[in-house]
């Protein structure tokens, strides 16, 4: 295993120690070693934004702790839900008295642990609403959305809900906009190589050389089909052919696009793929409001890519354009002096 680790069983602890030391301007540890919070949290008068999930998806989840984004994160083992205790502690540190929205992905373990954490927090008198991302269009048919996984679309959900919370909206309003964002978001992934959990030491699934798996999940969950490896353009086409009808994206729509590498993909190649995505959207009469291209939500060292589309309206577009500052996402208001995107 060609990896940069010490004790494979302690990769999460050692990663967190490094992360906290590297970014003291953005994040702080808490009394629970599996919970990090953004600096200055809880913010008086603001609804708290909590998320959490298994490790191995950097910069998700802790990379989105920061201004106008996420307030506290529960951290799990590699690809494994955080404990109910961690979600509960994250909710407690994020609550300023205005309540907390827990925005996470649809996985059995996370659902169970968040439910237990909500029960614990509500006993303390903390109001908690949860919104579950289910943006992975390849993970179940459209009529079974409750079975779909949450993937890179979670980043857009945090971005929009984090912006609204920072503007001072109520708990119900923040949860509603998060749900609206999820409902309008569709994602799909393509995997080219498997990934290896360090403590396992070898890949637990295979993708034959010369093939690609369309619809692969963020933990290597099998996709909907295995095909001969295709060009970047053909990959973009395959993903759009799946997403556009599924999310009913059509001429006149305005979208945000997020192209994320799965960990081992050269960023250069993400732009090659994005080029075709933009070309196809142009051709379909769908306007591109804002684009994110980079490693936003990865799967250890998997080679591959995810494509996420969010159908915007004026409200969502404006919230998406708000400034944000975190390790995984830094953006500035367009038109402001020195504006640019990091």
């Amino acid at each position, binding site marked *: 295993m060609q990896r940069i680790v010490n004790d494979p069983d302690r990769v999460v602890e050692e990663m967190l120690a490094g992360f906290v030391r590297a970014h003291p301007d953005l994040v702080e540890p808490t009394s629970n070693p599996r919970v990090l919070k953004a600096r200055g949290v809880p913010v008086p008068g603001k609804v708290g934004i909590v998320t959490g999930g298994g490790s191995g998806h950097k910069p998700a989840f802790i990379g989105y702790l920061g201004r106008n984004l996420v307030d506290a994160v529960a951290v799990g*083992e590699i690809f494994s839900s955080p404990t109910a205790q961690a979600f509960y502690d994250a909710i407690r540190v994020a609550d300023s008295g205005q309540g907390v929205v827990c925005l996470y992905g649809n996985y059995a373990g996370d659902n169970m642990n968040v439910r237990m954490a909500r029960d614990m927090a509500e006993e303390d008198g903390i109001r908690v609403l949860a919104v579950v991302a289910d943006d992975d269009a390849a993970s179940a048919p459209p009529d079974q959305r409750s079975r779909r996984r949450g993937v890179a679309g979670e980043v857009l959900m945090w971005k929009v809900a984090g912006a609204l919370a920072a503007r001072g909206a109520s708990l119900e309003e923040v949860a509603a906009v998060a749900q609206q964002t999820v409902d309008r978001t569709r994602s799909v992934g393509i995997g080219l190589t498997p990934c290896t959990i360090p403590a396992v030491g070898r890949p637990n699934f295979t993708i034959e050389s010369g093939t690609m798996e369309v619809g692969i999940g963020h933990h290597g969950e099998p996709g909907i089909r295995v095909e001969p490896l295709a060009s970047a353009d053909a990959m973009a086409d395959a993903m759009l052919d799946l997403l556009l009808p599924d999310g009913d994206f059509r001429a006149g729509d305005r979208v945000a696009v997020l192209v994320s590498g799965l960990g081992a993909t050269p960023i250069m190649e993400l732009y090659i793929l994005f080029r075709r995505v933009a070309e196809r959207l142009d051709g379909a009469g769908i306007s591109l409001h804002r684009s994110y291209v980079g490693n936003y939500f990865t799967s250890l060292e998997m080679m591959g890519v995810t494509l996420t589309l969010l159908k915007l309206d004026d409200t969502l577009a404006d919230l998406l354009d708000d400034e944000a500052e975190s390790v995984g996402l830094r953006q500035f208001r367009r038109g402001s002096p020195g504006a640019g995107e990091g």
Partner: protein
Amino acid sequence: MAAGFPARDGGLLVDRMIRAIRENRDRLSAIDGAIGDGDHGINMAKGFGLCAERLAGEPRGLEESLRTLGRVLLMEIGGSMGPLYGSFFLEMAKAARGLDRVDGPAFLGMLQAGLAKIRAVGGAEPGDKTLLDVLVPAVSALAGALDRGEPFGDALEALDAASAAGFESTRDMVARVGRASRLGERSRGFPDAGAASCDLLLRAMTDGIRDLMKEDRA
């Protein structure tokens, strides 16, 4: 005196479960790898290993050992298995409270309490290709054998057989909950990892009980 064992010696059951999980760490991960993400053995070994540290090799009673195990799994091991097994062992510990001796009906009562809790937490049904496909028939087999008046030792054999058969039965099922459920039909042909660990844990407990009963008679 009815066949059974002193509750104060019952920590052996937890020791046996810890050993079984540690010895089968890689096998459980391999089973999980076929239709899950391959970390079941790692997370279980981590949880049971932490429990071993907490118990620190000191002889403990059944209730205390099970409670320690349940707490560690629930509070320190996430995933799906932390809350499910954590709740299961905590309920077993509650049912063991105040017991002096553990006989067939007492052990059955503990398992039934744990089963009721695990069903409430997980929301799965038998046939969904989960650990319930081991636990439900195993507990029924124990109950049935005790109802028929079979000795505790024989009733444990019935439990073991039903547990092993339950594990095998998951091979032909289509997963309806949990990570493997996303595979639909493609999950058929592979056993369920949670069912595998549940089968190991139950049979580690029954092995422990058999050894304690031998000592008890000696």
